[in-house]
Every structure is written in structure tokens, then in C-alpha cells.
């Protein structure tokens, strides 16, 4: 316990978390500090490119083993199943109506790539080894949750009087799949992964001064923006009700628990296991909201983003990282 508290305290003093806190504080105080939208998008593109390519290079260098493939499968399954758990909690504890609860649940089955990135930076700082190709699992877990969310909405979303259950003019499935799988960040993450895998270490070296060296500093700037966004989100929509808030903390903890169990069953080592736990615990705020907006326009998209961006994301970054790392180190092999 003491060491968790100490790790949490150290995490609190990392530049990463401090810049996030600065963003939160500036946003909360209504400072006019703002990262221009184009820059925020560029930072996010940079992080995707970098993490994707790093993953591909790692794959090219280390190859693939059976345990990794199993973990891939487990990730896909986890992303598809977590929304069912999340749905129940958001309905019961959060008191959210069915269609919105289904949409929110999809966010929590999917993952937050920035949380994943922060976790890799955390592990590097803590000196705990992990494989860069874990990012492939992150990419695989982006989308299955969306199917689960749609299923839940169609199954439990009672039609309003005289209207169709979900949307009068529902987007065709092809368009939906397109929106999801060709989402810019998913495309880039996977594309850069493949490029890294094709070029291997040699290709990586030639672009390292841009693609890898500034990574941690860029992450700080990006987290500053995330802090600003989270604070502004809260200012615009207000804090969710206590039950909903609680669910926004409990669902990631449950996701972390389930993921830890899987990692233990598959004999995954601590570093990779911690990253898998982070994937289970984190919630999407880029790919999934766009898809839900299109497919379930009547769901409360604002609440979904408030929860994933302004409740779960800060929780994971500030308290979650040291907690998940401690859990992984306690229960998984080194």
C-alpha cells in the first residue's frame, strides 16, 4: 500500500500529469489559454504516428508469439463484452435511459489511445519493461465495443411513441462501418504500425529525431490541451449526478479487474499486463463518439464525452496509472 501511495505521489509530480493539471486549472479558472484546434489535431496525429510506428518496428524486431496472439483475441472479446457490464452499471447506478446508456457503454468497451500512451510513458519512467507492439491490441480494441453498443441500443431502446426505436433515418450499415474503421486516428494508427513493421529498425532510425525523440514533450503539450478540454467540458455541461459519476469511476475499475484476470490467466508479464489493464479501464473519446453520433443521434452524446473525457480520463491518468501498475506487479509475473 505504501508503495502505491508513493508511486501515486511520484506520478503526480511527473511533467505529464502536471501539465494535465495545469490545463485543468487554467480551464477551470476560465483562463483564455487555448491550444488552437489545428495544433491539437496535429499533436494527436503525431502521437498516433509515433506510437503506431514504434509498435510496428517492435513487431518486426521481436516477431510474434502465441501468447501475444491469444492476448489479441482476448482484447477483441473484452472490447465486445465490457459494454454489457458497463450498460448495467450506467443504467442501475447512473440512472441513465437505455439508448444513452448503450452509447456510453460503447465508449467504455473501446479504449483511449492517449491513456495508453501515458501508460507507456509511465512504465518507461518506472523502469518496468513492456513490448511496444502492445499498441496493436489497442487498435484491435477500438471498434468491437461499437457493435455491442448498437446491439444494446436496439435491444433495450424502447421506441418513442410513433417513431422508430433508434432513428427515423438510420445510417446504412456500410456508412457506419466506414465511419468506424476509416476513422482518421484508427487509419493512421494502423497505417503507421504497418509502415513500422515494413521498414523495421532501419526506417525508424532515419526518422527518430522527429518521430520518437520529442515524444514525451509532445505528450505534455497534448495533455495540457486535454486538461483544458476536460475543464471546459465540465464547465459547459456541469458535473454529472453522483450516481453517474460513481459509475464513471466504477466501470473503469471493473474493466481493469477483468483485464487483469485475463492477463493473469494467459500468463502475461507485468509490463504488458499493466498496458492491457489500462486498455480495459480506459474509455474512448475520439472514434466512438463520432460513430455513436451518427448511429444513435438521440443518445446523450454530451454526457458520454463528459464522462469519458472529464471523469474517467483524469481518474486514469492521475490515480489509475500507479494503481494499475501496482496491481499488475502484485499479481503478474515480472
Amino acid at each position, binding site marked *: 500500500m505504501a508503495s502505491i501511495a508513493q508511486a501515486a505521489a511520484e506520478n503526480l509530480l511527473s511533467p505529464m500529469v502536471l501539465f494535465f493539471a495545469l490545463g485543468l486549472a487554467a480551464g477551470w479558472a476560465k483562463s483564455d489559454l487555448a*491550444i488552437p*484546434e489545428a495544433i*491539437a*489535431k496535429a499533436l*494527436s496525429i503525431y502521437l498516433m504516428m509515433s506510437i503506431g510506428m514504434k509498435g510496428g518496428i517492435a513487431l518486426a524486431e521481436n516477431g510474434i508469439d502465441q501468447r501475444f496472439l491469444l492476448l489479441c483475441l482476448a482484447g477483441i472479446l473484452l472490447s465486445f463484452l465490457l459494454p454489457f457490464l458497463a450498460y448495467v452499471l450506467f443504467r442501475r447506478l447512473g440512472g441513465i435511459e437505455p439508448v444513452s446508456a448503450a452509447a456510453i457503454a460503447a465508449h467504455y468497451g473501446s479504449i483511449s489511445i492517449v491513456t495508453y500512451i501515458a501508460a507507456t510513458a509511465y512504465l518507461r519512467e518506472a523502469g518496468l519493461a513492456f513490448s511496444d507492439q502492445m499498441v496493436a491490441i489497442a487498435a484491435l480494441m477500438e471498434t468491437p465495443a461499437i457493435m455491442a453498443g448498437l446491439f444494446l441500443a436496439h435491444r433495450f431502446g424502447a421506441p418513442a411513441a410513433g417513431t422508430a426505436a433508434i*432513428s*427515423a*433515418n438510420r445510417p446504412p450499415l456500410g456508412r457506419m462501418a466506414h465511419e468506424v474503421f476509416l476513422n482518421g486516428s484508427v487509419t493512421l494508427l494502423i497505417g503507421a504500425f504497418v509502415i513500422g513493421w515494413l521498414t523495421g529498425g532501419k526506417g525508424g532510425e532515419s526518422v527518430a529525431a522527429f518521430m520518437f525523440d520529442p515524444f514525451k514533450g509532445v505528450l505534455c503539450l497534448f495533455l495540457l*490541451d486535454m486538461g*483544458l*478540454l476536460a475543464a*471546459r*467540458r465540465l464547465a*459547459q*455541461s456541469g458535473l454529472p449526478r453522483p450516481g453517474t459519476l460513481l459509475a464513471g469511476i466504477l466501470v473503469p475499475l471493473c474493466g481493469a479487474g477483468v483485464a487483469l484476470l485475463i492477463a493473469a490467466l494467459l500468463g502475461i508479464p507485468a509490463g504488458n499486463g499493466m498496458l492491457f489493464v489500462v486498455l480495459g479501464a480506459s474509455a474512448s*473519446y*475520439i472514434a466512438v*463518439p*463520432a460513430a*455513436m*453520433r*451518427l448511429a444513435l*443521434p*438521440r443518445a446523450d*452524446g*454530451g454526457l458520454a*464525452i463528459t464522462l469519458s*473525457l472529464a471523469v474517467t480520463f483524469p481518474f486514469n491518468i492521475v490515480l489509475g496509472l500507479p494503481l494499475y501498475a501496482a496491481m499488475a506487479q502484485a499479481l503478474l509475473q515480472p
Partner: protein
Amino acid sequence: MQTHRKKRIEIIVESAIEHRLVAAIEAEGASGYTTHPVIGGKGHHGAWQEIGITPGSGKLAIVVIASPELAERLVPKLYAAMADYSGVILMSDVEVIRSAHFS
């Protein structure tokens, strides 16, 4: 300078369904349209602002110049395509110089 009466249709809508409205505009045979950026606002769905990377809040404005007859046909179509989604449609009178340029 002779001018001709047209309708100016102005739509404020979520970027997510831009393609749907453009499809309706083209299907009805309008000669063109223009899209403008929008940076924030407030309506029945609450206040929003273009803030960084989070999606779903993104909106834009589409302007179509059309003959009164075309406008009469087009507006209900646009209205239907926007059902369930947040946004507004306005129509006003404008004058243009060359009538043939617009349908």
C-alpha cells in the same frame, strides 16, 4: 441592373451529416452550395464550442441559393434529413444578377 429573386437557404448542422444534406441538395438539382465554418453556439441541445479534438460538437453552415420553386421542394427534404440531429434551417429572399446561373 436587372436582378432576379431567389431564395437563400441557410442551414446550421452537425458536420456528421453534411454528406446527407449535400446529397439532398444535389438530388433536387440545385446548381450549387457553399459551406461556411461555425465556431460555437447555443440551442435546444445546449451550448457548444469548437474545442479541439473531441468530435460530435463540430457544426457547419451550408448556404444554397435556389429558385423559389426549388427552395419549396428542397427545404422539406433537408428538414427530413436533419430529423433527430441538432440544427436549424432558415430561408430568406435575395436578388442575383444572372438568373441562369442558379436553378
